């Protein structure tokens, strides 16, 4: 009877320890994932900021205000409409 009582207590202790270990493992995994997620978020924000800055530079570099003086310096000018030729779609003859 006494032996059964000790086994019963030991069983409960092991069960309790297992539960505690499981909860701790879950918490640890959650923390690791949360940290990873936060890092990803931060990295994404940083990349978005870089992208915005690049967008600004592209817009500035490709704007008429920047390109036109450069083109004029090189002796280029806007073509007149007669100098823009749009090719027509070739019409396929029915066989």
């Amino acid at each position, binding site marked *: 009877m006494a032996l059964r009582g000790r086994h019963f207590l030991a069983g409960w202790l092991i069960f309790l320890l297992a539960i505690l270990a499981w909860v701790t493992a879950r918490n640890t995994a959650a923390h690791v994932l949360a940290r990873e997620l936060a890092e990803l978020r*931060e990295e994404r924000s940083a990349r978005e900021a870089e992208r915005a800055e690049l967008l600004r530079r592209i817009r500035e570099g490709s704007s008429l205000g920047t390109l036109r003086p450069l083109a004029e310096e090189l002796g280029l000018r806007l073509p007149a409409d007669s100098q823009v030729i749009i*090719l027509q779609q070739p019409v396929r003859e029915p066989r």
Partner: protein
Amino acid sequence: MAKTEVRLRVVQIAFALGVVALVARAAQVQLAEGRRYAADAEARRTERVELPAARGTIYDRAGTPLAITQERHHVGIAPNELTDAAAATRLLQSALGLGEREVRLALRRRWAYFHGPFSAAQVHELRRLRGIHLTRTYERFLPDPDFALPVLGRPAAEGREASGVERMLDSVLAGTPGSAVVLRDGEGRVYESPSRLDAFPVPGDDVYLTLDAQVQEIVETALADALERFRAAGGDIVVLDPHTGEILGLASRRADGSQPATAFTSVFEPGSTAKVVVAAGLLVNNLVQPTDSVWGENGRWRLPYRVLEDEHPVQWATLEHAIQVSSNIATVKFAERLTRTQQFRIMRDFGFGTPTGVDVPVESRGRLPLPQDWSGTTAQALAIGYEFSVTPVQLAQAYAVIANGGVLFRPALVKRVQAPGGAIRYEHRPEPVRRVVTPEQAAQLLVMLRGVTLEGGTGAGAAMAQYEVAGKTGTARVAGPNGYIPGAYTAIFASMFPASDPQLVLVVKIDEPHGGYFASITAAPVTRRVLEQLLAARTNALDRRRLARPAAPSPTQVIAADPGVLPMVYAWPDTAGDADTASRTVPNVAGLSFREAVERLHRRGLRARVEGQGSGRVARTRPAAGGAVAPGALVVLVGR
């Protein structure tokens, strides 16, 4: 002995009483007042905060971002928490672009603060340091701060009201803020507590405008150049697709460089550009034949209350010729065939005197007097574009009627509203308001307007060598508080391009030009300049396949030869600017870590959201792997 027992008993009783008092107090604190103390403690160490939602992005019609939301940060530093102050100083200097002295002085204080705001890229390296506390905020970022300002407007800020599309669609762009409970330390500093997140912030919807960034840049540059060249007080240019009512480009500018939304709000008398409405009224009511002529009085006609004069005197003029040379006298004589009701109705049908309904927060309806309020000379004045007023957008809308075969469309600025998940919440469909003239009558009006840009017409300055432009000039006096201002004019040219099959309607308006005020030498050449740039640009605003079709030139059109110049040849079909719209396949990312899965989806041009992280690996995706989705669609990664 007895004495000792008594003493012991007293001590025992005192001890017992003390224990009872302690238990009673504990019970009182825990049971009776427990909730109050708990709430008090909670309030002292936690705080409920609102998590701001990122504002939606505004794009042009091809997906070029015009206004985006950026995460910005204020930087707080607790110097006593820094482990390596020298390294932190160097990093702060390089990352935030601060001076060494500034950083050193700040770090001597108990709490240093740099307001910035700094971009996420700038503070990225600082996150690793202990003792650095970042406060996140969202800010609107404009890749080009002045671009499309009258249309985009600005979101509300301290001391400034919202304007433009930012105001009109504020509820759509704003998103829904989230909420969280954060922990505070003894000094009131806030620590994020991920376990107490109540609601995620939901970003705002993205808005795609009808504007074409290239068209917009061309009209903005052309307007700025024109204001400088003509030393004008201001001006507006509107480019509109007549078949859908979509505004492709819109520029408004004053001489001081400001850009108020005058294309929607500022009214002017349209002058001779309104003569075509008289012609439409005569056609609709079957009151004119192509061969009908009126006497042009050799350019000067004295009426009971006014004298009418023509810049280009004519003798006998048909309606078409009257429009071509912009004869006030002939137009008034033709307009006398209309009753007041007929004249008012056709003007109302063209949209004058009523708001267009375009997607802006403030719009002027212009002014069109009711027939019962007309004086004896109002009908004559209305016929030549006086005594009523319009906005540039109203004028463009009216000319679009002629360009599209007779239907008045509501002008539109918003092409599409898209939820963060990719769902389309709104898609613009052309909204016809009414049929104004029949297709045959619209074609007749178009023929009249084609004559304006031919040799001898007032709009010859807009003529191009290879394509025909139809349009009408207008040079109207500027009204002030005490009547017309001497020497002040508004020059307008409303046009359609190409005349054979109009794809665009342009309205160019220049306020108070100097050194020649007639529209023929101001607004008309600006129109040609804009059209030439549009032809040379790689914009999809013009359907080049339709342009390439052989046009039916007017028999009197002279095609100017320009030998010796190397032509610019465009590849056909022109697909350079086409958006990438091919659908994508959802990749199989099951078993991968979330990081790898997200990277793979991004490379495929898709967006990702993590749901149920579990072991940190992906169990499945929604939509399932192998499914076809649109570019930029959201794929949910479900953990296992």
